[in-house]
């Protein structure tokens, strides 16, 4: 990880937090002044690879990767649950890492390789993780399911690559796909139907260790 990933320091956050408080405190009379005219929002071109296919889009720069997938490419398997990075339903795999696609703008993904649930498997040819979810009934309403599956696939890959987590006891040893490791790493994917116990069974099967 590069140092400048942490370019925003804690002090910086505190300072900017203070600044936004100051703006919110402007007396209402001034806040009411609206801009005389609204400029057209900027559109930008972005080229990325989605599920192995090159796609070129021209999108409003405010368009999230999630909305680009759902509303522009009609890949609606990726779900919008909160649009704020709180639920994980929009999880996709970008250049091998899982992200919340609602928290990133489409135009940030020039040249990126994006894998969505549709890229893992199809109803006729399920990915092993998809088949395991069906077998273990690792879903109910199905809305968080694509995100759970994308996360599950990426989590097992993270563990294989030796990426530690909050519950990894020994940072010098390779993490293993234990129940605790999988539960911890999957905790950004909420399932309100409560299929967690079954999702873990599905992941355990794919991780190659029967629970």
């Amino acid at each position, binding site marked *: 990880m590069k140092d400048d990933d942490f370019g925003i320091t804690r002090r910086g956050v505190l300072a900017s937090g203070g600044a936004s408080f100051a703006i919110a405190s402007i007396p209402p009379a001034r806040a009411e002044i*609206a801009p005389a*005219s*609204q*400029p057209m*929002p900027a559109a930008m071109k972005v080229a990325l690879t989605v599920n192995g296919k090159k796609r070129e889009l021209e999108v409003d720069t*405010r*368009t999230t990767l999630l*909305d680009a997938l*759902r*509303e522009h490419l*009609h890949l*609606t*398997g*990726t*779900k*919008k*649950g*909160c*649009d*704020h990075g*709180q*639920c994980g*339903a929009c999880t996709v795999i970008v250049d091998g890492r899982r992200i919340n696609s609602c928290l990133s703008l489409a135009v940030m993904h020039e040249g990126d390789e994006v894998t*969505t*649930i*549709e890229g*893992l*498997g*199809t*109803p006729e040819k*399920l990915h092993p993780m*998809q*088949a395991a*979810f*069906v*077998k273990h*009934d690792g*879903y*109910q*309403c*199905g*809305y*968080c*399911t*694509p995100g759970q*599956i994308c996360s599950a696939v990426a989590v097992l890959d993270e563990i294989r690559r030796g990426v530690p987590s909050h519950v990894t006891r020994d940072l010098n040893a390779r993490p293993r796909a234990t*129940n605790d490791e999988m*539960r911890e790493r*999957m*905790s950004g*994917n909420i*399932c*309100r*139907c*409560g*299929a*967690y*116990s079954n999702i*873990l069974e599905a992941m355990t099967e794919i991780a190659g260790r029967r*629970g």
Partner: protein
Amino acid sequence: MKFDTPAGTNPIDQLKVVGRPTDRIDGRFKTTGTAPYAYENPAPNAAYGYVVGAAIAKGRIASIDPGAAKGAPGVLAILTADTAGKLTKGDFNTANLLGGPEIEHYHQAVALVVAESFEQARAAAALVRIDYARGKGAFDLHAAKESAQPSKDQKDIKVGDFAAAFAAAPVTIDATYHTPDQAHAMMEPHASIAAWEGDQLTLWTANQMINWGRGDVARTLGIPKDKVRLISPYIGGGFGGKLFVRADAILAALGAKAAGRPVKVALQRPLMFNNTTHRPATLQRIRIGATREGKITAIGHESWSGDLPGGGIENAVQQTRLLYAGPNRLITARLATLDLPEGNAMRAPGEAPGLMALEIAIDEMAEKLGMDPIQFRILNDTQVDPEKPERPFSQRQLIECLQRGAERFGWSRRSATPAAVRDGVWLIGMGVAAGFRNNLVTKSGARVRLSPAGRIIVETDMTDIGTGSYTIIAQTAAEMMGVPLDRVDVKLGDSSFPVSAGSGGQWGANSATSGVYAACVKLREAVAQKLGFNSADAVFTGGKVRSGNRSAPLARAAAGGEIVVEDSIEFGDLAKRYQQSTFAGHFVEVAVHGYTGETRIRRMLAVCAAGRILNPKSARSQVIGAMTMAAGAALMEELAIDKRFGFFVNHDLAGYEVPVHADIPHQEVIFLDEVDPISSPMKAKGVGELGICGVAAAVANAAYNATGVRVRDYPVTLDKMLDRLPTAGPQGSP
């Protein structure tokens, strides 16, 4: 088909398909992201709507000025109560879905901005200028308690002489419990796409009750019901939150009319918690008096909840009418007027919060009596309705649930003395609670077709909100028609199909499959007649129909064209003559951190008696899901109220905490063998809500057993235990 006498032997009893743990037939669509939810139906040329919510809880809009929003890029229409035309409140709504000028609750929708793109609609919505005149509201249940009134939803129950019996009882408890407001927080936001063709409205919408929804859309918009079509094949969770039409549907319809093209609207997540319904908070006073031997002589349960004017109670006392014996009973519910968002049904309305309190009280009483809490429950079991002893339960295996669970869970290893078991810094405890939820049945219809290719097609407006409706309906049709599961197609959630029970109150599975059963009985008769067989002795099996020594392929009956029949199940008075309920024994082991009071659930077991289990795989999922939601209710879920301004503060999925993977251990579910011929021809009952009933109390009781700290105010968070945690254990550490 009338169902007014207990079911005899019927084709479902073969259990070749029904009753087998079966993968969901919709699983390959849900796991590949190809199952279309409301917002995802192809709607060419659709515009996007963005909802503006009221910034006050009560009062009036002084002025609303869409000015800057009007000229914003891409904007097609701006709707407010001023411009929407006359709207009538739906039969199932307490507050108007589009507010203004009167505001009834915080985040009540007050405007919809429609634009070419989502980003444009969102940006323009921020420019709508609204000035409010804030009114005074009541937001505090404790403060409003004294003003609460009786409600038509629950008459006062007085059996024997409660006051005298309680006063005379040698052992008593008198305790008050609090359950907070809770949110459904289903993963799919309320969402709709509306499209008009002339005066005909089509709504793809996330809704559990298609026919109710169709009626209320028509009523709200002032158009005939037959001009409204609702389509809802996949629903991303509901838990009661999608029983009713919400603002997304009405605003999409109005927006589409104004824009002259289809409009899609999803409620923004931060709007959902205050804009839609929630489970109301309760205050519950429970008094129990018993003999020294542990026989209950007096049981009193009084509950208070609040809602908007015209709303209803959270009926937290209803299970207490039926769960335990006792000759002297006092049961009341009172309703206060509160100006918080609308309260309404959430998974096991009434029983879920009611048992959160009652089943702690039972634990407290058992301890006071020096009895094992399971033994105390067994001693006070009743096989008849305590208010009407001539009215038996159709089935009641509560004792068996508790005993089987105790054995399986290792209950004998529990220390009756709290705070006696440690694992390092963790305090370990076990808790138990009874689960109880009534079995409701309601009329349900279906259409079934036999195609010339021999396929069975079922059409009903029943919904699948994750419950497994698709699969159990297919299993029912396959069993009835004697075909393998993969020869059945199930089409759900469309108001052009026969009206079904819908999904709510755990009545869906039993009622909807019974409706399919009724239609299949009719189809069997039609097939037998076509084949020239005597329908009474025709046997449907292996894709063939046999009668005496004759046999014909099922498909031959449709050789001359598809056979289509329709029927519904209608329930007689068996539910009046017999009390129909479902039962469970819930067992939980927790570890409470000795220094911080953090509670972790280590083990969970539910033993359920709920009639025939149609698909043990999806039924088990219903139960573990409900146990998970109950874990949230026990340990973390609470809508925090700003009592000055009258809104739920933690109105998103970051602030309103629900259980995540790391919170939930492996969960075990056992279904007792049971068939209930009094319930329906399926001999089934519901389980989807039984699974949440009692679990939270089992968690709280386990936390008490671990620590000796009794928390009566949910959720059981560490701050409520911290200053009372047992002090240093061995070696000076807790």
